[in-house]
């Protein structure tokens, strides 16, 4: 099974997985609109159709979906970028899963509300006051003027300091790694992805990963993994006639 050719039928997108990846990388498709769980479901369905477990496909899929999740996480809470970057990967994964589940629930609940609205649509009731209801002068109980001072104090309360640390946190441009990997593959025919990015920050690793996917999509390199979770080996692909997408160098992944 070739993961890239996995056919998807989502609300926001219909087509093969690799086209979705390309559109996301080019920012032509907002990840916010993409139901990643549905992609997982589609993959699992395909997997279930096969008699043997396709370990290679599983590994590739996991890596791809993880990258998308990370990107989506950044889109879902950009203001917490710094905070999230400081979490260790396990915490970040937990936090991300929690957010995705919450959003998923909200969407499910919205569907339920819409159905409910349709089924309860024939219940009419009065929205305003009763036309002939007696008018009563409602005496107001005495109030303490300190209440007024207190609500104004709350209104004047300094909001908590907004962390500005994320201003320094730019998503490194993918193009930087496109160049770097191309240069690397001119010198060596293959390299180990993990070793190559080991010294980088998580954000840089994410960019590097996207660059690697993009180069493979363009047919400039091949990715090989002996087994799921085994090191990802990147090797040069001899290309007779390399046609480079002109936009490639210009891409940067949006920094929130």
């Amino acid at each position, binding site marked *: 099974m070739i993961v890239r050719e996995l056919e998807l039928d989502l609300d926001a997108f219909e087509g093969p997985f690799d086209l979705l990846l390309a559109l996301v990388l080019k920012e032509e498709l907002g990840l916010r609109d993409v139901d990643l769980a549905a992609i997982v479901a589609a993959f699992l369905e395909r997997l279930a159709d096969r008699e043997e477990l396709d370990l290679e496909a599983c590994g590739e899929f996991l890596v791809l979906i993880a990258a998308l999740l990370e990107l989506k996480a950044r889109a879902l809470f950009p203001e917490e970028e710094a905070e999230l970057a400081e979490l260790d990967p396990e915490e970040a994964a937990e936090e991300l899963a929690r957010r995705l589940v919450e959003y998923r629930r909200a969407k499910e609940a919205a569907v339920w509300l819409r159905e409910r609205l349709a089924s309860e649509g024939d219940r*009419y*009731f*009065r*929205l*305003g*006051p*009763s*036309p*002939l*209801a*007696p008018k*009563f002068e*409602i*005496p*107001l*109980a*005495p*109030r*303490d*003027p*300190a*209440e*007024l*001072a207190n*609500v*104004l*104090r709350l*209104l*004047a*309360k*300094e*909001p908590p300091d*907004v962390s500005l640390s994320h201003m320094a946190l730019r998503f490194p441009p993918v193009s930087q790694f496109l160049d770097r990997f191309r240069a690397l593959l001119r010198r060596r025919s293959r390299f180990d992805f993990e070793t190559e990015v080991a010294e980088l920050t998580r954000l840089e690793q994410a960019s590097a990963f996207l660059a690697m996917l993009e180069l493979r999509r363009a047919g400039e390199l091949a990715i090989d993994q002996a087994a799921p979770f085994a090191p990802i080996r990147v090797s040069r692909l001899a290309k007779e006639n390399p046609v480079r997408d002109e936009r490639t160098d210009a891409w940067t992944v949006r920094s929130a």
Partner: protein
Amino acid sequence: MDRPLRLIPTDPLDRLARTIEALLVVSSTPLPVEDLAAAADDAPERVEEALRLVADRFAEERSGIVLEHVAGGWAFRAGREEAEACARLFERPAQRNLSQAALETLAIVAYLGPCSRPDIARIRGVAADSAVANLLDRGLIAEAGRDSVAGGAIRYRTTPLFERVFGLESLSELPRLDDVGADAAEIRDRLHTVAERRSA
């Protein structure tokens, strides 16, 4: 009409009477016969006839709900015997409470002097329309001319009733807010600064 078959025998006039009951219980204004006829999709004469059935069903001493013909048309009201119970209902403490939005609006108008809705919204960070309407209704604020700038929005001030409710001889007796600002201008500046930061 594709109503499901029902086993309850329905005299057509009785059917129309039920429709009229429904329309009257949903309306917040008295309904003239023409409106009832248009909504029920029936003739005004038949509606008048059906109204007699409804009036018979909802009569004083027979039902707690009474059908009444007033200037604007037909409407339900509470039976006369239930006046006491209705009075107790409307005096419920819940009706007397001021919401957070109302209290904030009141505090802003009291401390800063006449303010327009946009002024209040700017400080609160959200529209204050329903709070202002509510306070006007209760007589705690009143109109105080128009803003000379800002497109001439209506400004509001607190009323003598406000001072009575809060036990103040005058606005100068409001608790001091030195920690927020020395005078109204300073307090206003401070509130604007914080509001901008909050919405950033």
